[in-house]
């Protein structure tokens, strides 16, 4: 048996690969559920009900998907240009804390229509700065950004922790380590009444569409793709490598920072160190499941969010720990990598 490169990547297979990958991941998780002594189909039924079965469940899933769309896009745009941004988690927190810092008082006097976009911008810029440091180190000294962005996540979370224990600590929080809340004018309007779902979702979807258009249709999109696929040939064709990668990093870091900003303004109103249950890391999986396609990111984020939200309900109903969601999502990354391989290669006897 050997692997042979396919001359074309069949379109149907590219579309089908995440579906097959997810099905395979669910099947493998099913073995674990069975080993834990629970009925497998019942468990998956409960996950489905818990994530899509009611208005509340569905809006919760969408709320959870919102930051994942942003972090998924952050990973997708970076990976496409071979900028290995593993630091979306840290950029998320820095974006969030920047919004808390400015949104509590500095922008409190502005009308909401001005304050909200301004704070989103501030969050994005904060995320950008966090990614530009490792990118600068790569461009100047050849430091591998996989390592630096990953490690900066811990630096960022500790930095946020320091701020919310210190200068940005909420004096009215009974000593809990949480930041000052943003002013009311910075709270995102709800998308659906009596739910947690906020307009951040609409913003995320709109931005995914914009990112897709930028990548598919613009000069920058073409140059960043070239820089990612073959830097030497891109350089030969006159693509300014450094500035292209800097732009990519601004976009990627900005999207991750925006994720944090929107989460603060849309859901919690303030920052704690458990604001993100790993949105930055899950974003990498979302991007891979989407095959780095911005529109695909929306669907992949929805799946990932549904698994997490649904697993909570399932865990209450039949007593399987909700960690099974982490297992399934992580497995789906592995199965997706296998599926992607088979979109490019086929088996020959």
């Amino acid at each position: 048996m050997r692997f042979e490169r396919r001359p074309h990547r069949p379109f149907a297979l590219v579309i089908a690969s995440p579906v097959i990958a997810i099905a395979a991941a669910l099947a493998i998780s099913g073995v674990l559920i069975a080993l834990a002594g629970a009925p497998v189909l019942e468990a998956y039924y409960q996950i489905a009900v818990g994530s899509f079965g009611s208005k509340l469940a569905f809006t919760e899933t969408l709320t959870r998907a919102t930051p994942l769309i942003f972090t998924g896009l952050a990973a997708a745009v970076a990976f496409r240009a071979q900028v290995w941004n593993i630091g979306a988690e840290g950029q998320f927190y820095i974006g969030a804390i920047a919004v808390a810092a400015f949104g509590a008082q500095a922008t409190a006097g502005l009308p909401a229509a001005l304050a909200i976009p301004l704070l989103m911008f501030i969050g994005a810029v904060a995320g950008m700065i966090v990614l530009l440091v490792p990118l600068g180190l790569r461009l100047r000294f050849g430091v591998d950004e996989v390592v630096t962005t990953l490690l900066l996540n811990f630096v960022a979370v500790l930095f946020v922790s320091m701020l919310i224990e210190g200068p940005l600590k909420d004096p009215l929080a009974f000593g809990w380590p949480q930041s000052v809340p943003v002013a009311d004018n910075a709270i995102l309007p709800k998308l659906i009444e009596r739910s947690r779902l906020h307009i951040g979702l609409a913003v995320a979807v709109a931005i995914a569409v914009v990112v897709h258009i930028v990548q598919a249709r613009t000069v920058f999109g073409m140059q960043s793709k070239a820089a990612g696929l073959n830097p030497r040939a891109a350089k030969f064709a006159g693509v300014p490598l450094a500035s292209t990668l800097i732009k990519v990093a601004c976009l990627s870091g900005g999207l991750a920072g925006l994720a944090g900003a929107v989460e603060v303004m849309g859901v919690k109103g303030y920052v704690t160190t458990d604001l993100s249950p790993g949105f930055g890391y899950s974003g990498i999986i979302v991007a891979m499941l989407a095959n780095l396609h911005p529109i695909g990111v929306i669907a992949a984020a929805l799946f990932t969010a549904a698994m997490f939200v649904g697993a909570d309900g399932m865990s209450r109903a039949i007593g399987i720990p909700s960690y099974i969601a982490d297992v399934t999502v992580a497995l789906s990354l592995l199965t997706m990598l296998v599926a992607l391989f088979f979109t490019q290669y086929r088996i020959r006897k």
Partner: protein
Amino acid sequence: MGSPFSGRGVAGMSETPVLRLSNISKRFGDTIANDAVSIDLARGEVLALLGENGAGKTTLMSILFGHYTPDEGTVEVEGRALPPGRPRAAIDAGVGMVHQHFSLAANLTVLENVMTGTQSLWRAKSDTASARRKLAEIADRFGLAVNPDARLGDLSVGEQQRVEILKALYNDARILILDEPTAVLTNAEAERLFSTLREMARQGLSLIFISHKLNEVLAAADRVVVLRGGKVVAERQAEATTKEELAELMVGRQVARPKREAGKAGDVVLEAIGASLVVDGVARLSDLNFQIRAGETLGIIGVSGNGQAQLAHLVSGLSDATAGELRLFGEPIPTGVEALVEAGVGRIPEDRNAEGAIGEMTLWENAILERVRSKRFSKNGFVDRAAARAFAATIIEDFDVRGGAPDRRTRLLSGGNMQKLILGRNLHDQPKLLIAAQPTRGLDEGAIAAVHTRILEARAKGAAVLLISEDLDEVLSLADRIRAIVKGRLSPPLAAEEANAQRLGLMMAGDWNKDSQYGEASHAL
């Protein structure tokens, strides 16, 4: 040109052949790569497998080596059938393969590369000392000197190939297959390789080398098997055939490379005035002074690694001279690739896969990538895809890019057709200056003729051409004047009419100061 060992193969025929391929057939989808191919190889014989790109040579050798399983047919080594599809079995039976793209690790030393795969993973300590001894013995026996502790990435391509051969011999290969071994070599390196091959044959090894170059087939082989369209179309003793006959057998019709006709040179287009390039403290180009006029071709010859790549990069806008300057039409040359392309400079890079085109992008994207920011192909930052596709379609049509469509991915093109695409994007708008670095490296006869025709056409229409090539035949048939590059310095020019192999050889060896004959003539130019 007969080989001194040409009797051997025939004499060996009475014994069991060392290697016998019987009735090998292999299909890929609708394409028949090999069609009932049968070949015998005798002990001590050098067999050349000659054929155009796509004739099925590499497929056949991949079957022999177990990379592919044949649909039909068998491979026998010394009378024993090899199990199909098992490279390990081939290696154990004494078949060694030297790939066109070396399968070596750049970050390991020569010795480590040679030892890779020969030792059990579970052994705690690797037996370097005996490996070193064995390697030294082999190197000594076949005259393949190479420093075992050198890092592979620091070696020249020719030396890397030597390592690849050593690795096969280290695995006790008695049958050695070389896939287009000279594609990456300079003439001098190729000569050296041929004498190594003959020495190996003299010591009883059997060799198959795959090639589409007629000269070297005649120079190095005892026997030539010609493949065309997956079939053996002819078999000749090297001494009993001619270049012309082989060319016709290989291509199936008569092909001739075009020849330069005398032209009239116009104004100076490109001028280098004391141009130098220092990279990481090492002088790569020193004090270059030359001129190229419109309608004229300057050929730069030389042994690879003497600064050709740096010269091509310098004039292609990828690096800036650290001293001296380049002038285009008397003005300082624009900096940056975009400005150069805009100014009418066409650039054909040395390595089309690594620099010329991005395989995973479509033909239309590759066609316009270097001009994507121009008004012609983008508006307000958005790519004008219709214009780009139309441009690509014109190139495909005008330059006969076979198997091409604007939306196809570029890696699906054969080397020759990819080169035609690159030529097309550079020549479509008649450049004023064309820089062609190794423009036909690795191409087959048909494609070479097409590329040469295009370059001559551009010159005839008034382009100044800088041709950097290690292929002397190519330079002789295209260039008006020839200079050699040696250790980053340029020799004085020699008019093509006065050039012959001996003079060019002296030039490439750097002996131009001693040879007053053309030293003086050059000052007149």
